[in-house]
């Protein structure tokens, strides 16, 4: 199996606020991310597709197709947007890195050949990111739970 990763960057605004919480509770739980007027990030998205290189083309997936898919599904939906109010898939959810990564996974998985989307990694900053992936079975390969050796 070979992994192929495409990286894109988009910029968006968000705010963490749960209307079920009191203002004090929102400030306590979300800290400065609760700022009433929001704030923003330059997000970096890495989308990894797995597969065997095609015997004729040598490709796991045509990068142009992946690039177009990310442009259509992610860039047009999220770039230079307010994630709280302009992205219907995030309506009613706190737009954390975890939730945005989940939304991105759910947007992309049906549009990529079955079982081939390997991982979505979304960086909110250099120091914070979320991964979305399907757990492998006990006999599967690539499980992050089974790592047993310190490796250089």
């Amino acid at each position: 199996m070979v992994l192929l990763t495409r990286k894109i960057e988009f910029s968006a605004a968000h705010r963490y606020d749960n209307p079920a919480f009191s203002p004090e509770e929102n400030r306590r739980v979300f800290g400065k991310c609760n700022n009433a007027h929001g704030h923003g990030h330059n997000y970096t998205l890495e989308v990894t597709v797995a597969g065997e290189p095609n015997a004729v083309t040598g490709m796991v997936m045509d990068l142009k197709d992946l690039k177009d898919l990310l442009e259509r599904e992610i860039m047009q939906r999220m770039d230079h947007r307010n994630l709280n109010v302009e992205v219907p898939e995030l309506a009613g959810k706190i737009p954390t890195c975890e939730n945005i990564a989940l939304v991105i996974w759910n947007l992309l998985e049906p549009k990529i050949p079955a079982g081939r989307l390997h991982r979505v990694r979304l960086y909110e900053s250099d120091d914070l990111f979320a991964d979305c992936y399907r757990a492998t079975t006990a006999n599967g390969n690539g499980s992050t739970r089974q790592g047993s050796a310190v490796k250089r």
Partner: protein
Amino acid sequence: MSGELKVAMGRRYKFSASHRLHNAALSADENREIYGKCNNPHGHGHNYVLEVMVSGPVDAATGMIANLADLDAYVERRVLDDYDHKSFNEDVAAFRKMVPTTENVCVDIFERLKNFSQAKLERVRVEETGNNTFEYAGDANEEPNL
């Protein structure tokens, strides 16, 4: 499409520490042979980057796997307070018995963080320099290394 959909959160921290790679059970020549310039008797140091990955269900009320402030405080208390601006060989108990290679640093950090209560610790990854990176995800068959 098989397997449960999982979400993990990765958080990066920085610390600076000194070390000397030296095994007292080996001769001076063997230590120099194995560890090269890392065996310099007076030690040397690095700016390390620690990446901690935790996984678990995303809380619907907060959108989070774990509260970031709580994870930061836990890593600060369990690792960074003991590691940052310290000598591994002299200041960190685990390295009285283990050579402070970054492989062993990963193992020590994993043991220090594995009981985080809000999420499952998936793995730790340590960059000793931009060119050398080490990872440890625990070992189900290994005796706890306390």
